[in-house]
């Protein structure tokens, strides 16, 4: 394995994370926002796997499973919220939800 290969993976994950983060901040469509969050989570997963490989430690890969489980749960809740919102106001975006701030 070339010594620069892990760095490439880390760079890729940093780029993915940045794309996800910017997307989360600029887009108003809740569905897209959730996708951005997914993107960020998977960027993090990629770094975990990379570091695990670099340090010869299996726990980096184990944590990925936990992240996936949590991400799945998050998507379930998020999608349920989106469906509920779409039923009430099909054209609503994330900023319209600020009425719920209490």
């Amino acid at each position, binding site marked *: 394995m070339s010594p620069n290969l892990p760095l490439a993976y880390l760079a890729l994950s940093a780029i993915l994370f940045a794309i996800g983060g910017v997307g989360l901040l600029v887009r108003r469509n809740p569905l897209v926002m959730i996708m951005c969050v997914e993107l960020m989570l998977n960027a993090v997963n990629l770094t975990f796997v990379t570091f695990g490989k670099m340090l010869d430690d299996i726990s980096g890969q184990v944590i990925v499973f936990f992240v996936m489980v949590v991400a799945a749960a998050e998507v379930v809740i998020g999608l349920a919220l989106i469906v509920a919102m779409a039923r009430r106001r099909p054209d609503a975006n994330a*900023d319209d*939800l*600020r009425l*719920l*701030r209490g």
Partner: protein
Amino acid sequence: MVSLLWLIPALPLAGFLLLLLLGKRIGEPFAGWIGTAAVAGSFITAVVVFAGLWNEPEHTYSLKLFEWMPAGRFSVDIGFLLDPLSMAMILFITGIAALIHLYSIGYMHGDSRFPRFFTYLNLFVFSMLMLVMGDNLVLTFLGWEGVGACSYFLISFWFEKDANASAGKKAFITNRVGDWGFMVGTFAVFFAFGTVKYVEFLPKASGLAQTTATFIMLMLFIGAMGKSAQIPLFIWLPDAMAGPTPVSALIHAATMVTAGVYLMVRVNPIIAASASWLPWVIAGIGVATAFIAATIAIAQTDIKKVLAYSTVSQLGYMFLAVGVGGYTAAIFHMITHAFFKACMFLGSGSVIHGMNDEQDMRRMGALRKVMPITAITFIIGWLAIAGVPPFSGFWSKDDILAYALHKSVVLYVFGLITALLTAFYMSRQVFMVFFGKANWAESHGAELANKLAHETASTEGDAHADEVVDAHADAHAGQDFHPHESPRTMTIPLIVLAFFAAVAGLLNLPFTENLEFLKRWLEPVVGATQTQLHLSGSQLAIELVTSSVIALLGIAIAYGVYLKHKVDARRIELPLFANGWYIDSTISNFMGGLGRKGFELVAMFDKVVIDGAVNGVARATRGGAMRLRTVQSGYVRWYALMIGVGAVVIVAFVLTQVSFS
């Protein structure tokens, strides 16, 4: 048998609860009989327990019902300590209270709040029993406050009249001053010993630092001064006579006001551990109170006021006894005083009742013919308090004087002068009320009575003026004004009390050790610290003869002044005495003028600094929150940005702190 102990306070408590809930429905006279039965049952239980206590080791028994306040190292139980001292107190409290309950059935007849009166009385007896039976200072304090509250309720029982309501308030507020001392004393006991239980801290008292012991005693003494009406906190007791007469007899003569003496005797090991000047303070205040109150009693015209000042004076004797180390003598005098003073108070109540609520002694006279039983019992009480042998007061007063002489001649001389004054003013009262000319007969005519009522109303501004007006209005609206003997429920307690007032001296005759029953009985409680007094036969004889001569001299002077009119009474009844040495008015003036300014200053400080701090904190919190809440905008992407910025800041901070070398 002795384990029935809990029943003694439980019965009055049950009576109180029953009357509280159903009193109105039960009505007169059964509410009175229930109250009387509860207290009488308590007395019978006390006698049974007393019999059982003989078999207990050291005549001491304690019973813990449950833990009341567990808080770390500090714990207070609802527990009773039965020892010779509390047993003696319980016996005379329940006994006299039962008689006074019985008396009240007759006295309160026709009162619109008849059941409520007995509700309060039962609550009072319960509180008083908690006071003397409690095995720790906090429980005693519970009873202490309970009797204070009942005293307040009962002084202002006829609260329709402003004067009665303010007399109640005066008693309550003056007592608070003393209660402060009691509380600080209790805290100090806890800091010094880590416990407030008598059996745990009293034996350790001798190991206490002298200054600590002195401080504790000084504080507890302030508490006792308030409750037992000693100078300068005695001003509430004469006003407390605004309450119904049975209340004056029970609470403000026989039982509650002796609580301070009880407390002093209870903590006698701490007195022994205090600085040597402390007993002098107690004895000094006691004898000063005895003397000053006796001089005031000389010039009073209200039949109950004389007895009230006389009570203050006798309480002074008890404190004198405590101060000179004669604890037995203090308890002995407390018991005999309870008998003869209750007897006389009830007697005065009977007179007031028979005279249609007349309280001014100048309008009485020659009542022995129309009220023979009242007169005879009152006369026995009079002979007892005046110290005429062989009545009870003679023995107990002489016991105190013997201890006083052992300590100092000055205390003894003042004690003797007070004894002379006592004999004098009590004889004055008896002569004015029961002997001499019948002054009530003069005011027989309606016009005269009206004129009289008018006069009193305009000259005297106190509560009593209204009563006179009412009394005369009543008397003349209906039928003719006839003094009459009271019903049997009132005369039976009088007879019983008079009997004990005559013979209670047998409890503690000074001739041989065997006759000193009370002294031997109290030995386990006070024996270690009591002044040891060994009088030779001749010393004893001289003291007894001196006391008798003084008593008879006082009576003789009063006879000369009030029956033979050899001396004008006005030369003896100085305005200084009639106005109570101007103590009351001085306090009023101070509180109304300079004191009031001081209090306003304190109120200002409270408003600006204390309230300002509290409100300031609240205002700052609210203002801060108003600004902070704008952060929660509801824009999810804004939150995400905040999280991102926060993460960047934290990472940047970490990077500056960590070196990767």
